[in-house]
């Protein structure tokens, strides 16, 4: 029993975080907002960092890593509010595709959109080469018509009918939860930084308890959402029987943390938070978007309820971790 990341995992996280902090700044988000949301140079940079091949076996030109690493990277993608379809393509679709597609994804030469009946739309269909859904992958249609959405950097399209695929749903929900956690962390930082510099009554507003308590409450929510996410990643990596329940818990916890962070951050920013000029809105809107994607809070809570109240799943060491207590 050792609930820590390895040195290599922590180094990977730091490398991705540093890269995105330097290359994927709020100024980039503002440029993308004007120019239409996507930039080949950003995609190439993410591929150059190895994210494309993160989950692709080494034989196909990838790094051969697992879902714990994928979740750590997805948190950083959320923290930087990356909008390229890298999470769906590399962190969700790649391990579910064949060797040929995996090699292309590792090289940055293939983009995948994800279809599932749980979503009333499909993201990034315009840039996709393939659509992956229940029943396999198909060529993406040409020139789909975009929907009008709240997140200026997210592109949504009318859905493509396909059967449900539980593994796809679970993987996508896990990676969405990770991005929500990253976004929540960033919103807490944005609000905290603002509270340190904005002065009223002759002092920084962050010296007032009303502001402190708001932000501390977000810190608590985040602190107790993160290990739920990590456990879900571990369970998915081990293909443990209770993985779907653990992922649902992660999605609910991450959604709650992100929604609380978003509302708290706008409140701490005061009227400035209500402007387009302050960067906060990019993360806030992404939180709203990901909160509803791949099963909303109600859907995931129902799945937990079915196990806990309907199915008699107990709580404690028999179920908290991946395997059975007396396994082996």
């Amino acid at each position, binding site marked *: *029993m050792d609930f*820590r990341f390895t040195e290599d995992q922590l180094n990977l996280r730091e490398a991705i975080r540093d890269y995105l902090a330097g290359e994927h700044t709020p100024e980039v988000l503002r440029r993308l907002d004007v120019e239409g949301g996507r930039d080949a140079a950003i995609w190439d940079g993410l591929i150059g960092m190895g994210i494309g091949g993160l989950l692709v076996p080494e034989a196909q030109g990838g790094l051969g890593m697992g879902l714990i690493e994928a979740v750590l990277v997805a948190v950083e993608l959320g923290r930087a509010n990356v909008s390229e379809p890298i999470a769906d393509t590399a962190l969700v679709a790649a391990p579910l595709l064949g060797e040929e597609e995996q090699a292309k994804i590792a090289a940055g030469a293939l983009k995948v959109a994800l279809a599932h009946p749980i979503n009333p739309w499909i993201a990034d269909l315009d840039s996709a080469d393939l659509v992956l859904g229940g029943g396999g992958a198909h060529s993406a249609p040409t020139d789909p018509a975009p929907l009008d959405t709240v997140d200026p950097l997210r592109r949504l399209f009318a859905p493509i009918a396909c059967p449900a695929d539980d593994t796809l749903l679970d993987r996508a929900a896990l990676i969405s939860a990770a991005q929500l956690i990253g976004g929540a962390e960033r919103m807490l930082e944005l609000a905290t930084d603002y509270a340190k510099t904005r002065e009223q009554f002759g002092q920084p507003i962050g*010296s007032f308890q009303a502001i*402190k308590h708001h932000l*501390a409450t977000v810190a608590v929510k985040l602190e107790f959402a993160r*290990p739920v996410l990590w456990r879900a990643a571990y369970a998915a990596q081990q293909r443990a029987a209770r993985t779907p329940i653990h992922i649902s818990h992660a999605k609910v916890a991450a959604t709650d943390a992100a929604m609380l962070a978003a509302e708290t951050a706008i409140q701490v920013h005061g009227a400035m938070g209500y402007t387009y000029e302050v960067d906060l809105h990019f993360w806030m809107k992404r939180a709203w978007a990901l909160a509803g994607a791949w099963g909303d809070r109600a859907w995931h809570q129902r799945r937990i309820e079915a196990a806990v109240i309907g199915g008699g799943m*107990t709580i*404690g060491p028999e179920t908290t971790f991946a395997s059975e207590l007396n396994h082996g």
Partner: protein
Amino acid sequence: MDLEYTPEQNAFRAEVRAWMEAHVPRTPLKTLEGREGYDQHVEWERTLASGNWGMVTWPEAYGGRGLDLIRWLIFEEEYYRAGAPLRANQNGIFLLGPTIMEYGTDEQKARFLTPMAKGEVIWAQAWSEPNAGSDMAAIRSRAVRDGDHYVISGQKTWSSRAAFADWCFGIFRTDPESKRHKGLSFILLPLDSPGVTIRPIRQLHGETGFAEIFFDEVRVPVANRIAGEGEGWNVAMATAGFERGLMLRSPARFQAAAKRLVALYKEHAATASPAAHEAVLQAWMDAEAYALNTYAVASTVIAGGHIGAEASLNKIFWSELDRAAHRAAMSLLGATAELRTLPDGSANIWQEGYIFSLSGPIYAGSNEIQRNIIAERLLGLPR
């Protein structure tokens, strides 16, 4: 990351389980807040000690087993699984013990730790004063040096266990000219010392739980001081850290409550409000999250890390989780919630638990103080 128990950990669990099944009293003990129940709980401490289960993480030299925090979590899981009684010596083993381990002399360790682990000496806290609650640095009770003794005068309040306990630990002003955090010292003394008067305080539920302690020129040897004269504040902050941190409220406690809450919900599902339904699931998820976080922190501590202000995150989470879970239970019980004894003759443990849960966000430093600590020390906001 390896979230599997090792064969050795599973064997340890089996050992604890077998011992608990053989020794945990079949009938619930009377309340710890009354004389009879207190004596029963002290007896249980001694039974635990007879199995060498007093404090498994302590070194063997002091009555422990020298085990790591993961084993401690396993021990606690089995403790709650067996429905074992509350720990009468919680103040000693979870707060003062770790403090002496860190700041005490070898002589003090030998003198105080083993009797603590064996349940021979039960400890009370003597920190708060009528005008020093959240603002603990406003302490006025003084300890005046007289040769190799201190002469203590003043008043402490909200002292848990003080009505029946043997000794107390607290901070006193040893430098009469000092202000605030300076000039305080951490001192231990027997509650049957001449000049000590104890007045139990009747609590919300009608029982006496904590007490006031009056000191009228009580003579205490200087050897009973932990760490240097004037260093009491730092020692007390370390003790407070233990209190808010990992050990005081182990996750098994809340997992056990969540399990009972789900069972209660099933009995009352037909009449449950949507809010109670939501709260039951939230309590289950939060108890699970608390366990996961505790295992993560324990893993870090085992690897040499340490908990500082992060303990405040913990204290807020478990205390608010506990209150919400019991509030949900009261809602599920509807009009039955007001009965202290249920029609089947059993005690209404949800009502007792709800009343107790209301103290959680207050004791061990109010949650408002914890939020200040998080904001200032973890987020870096200005004072």
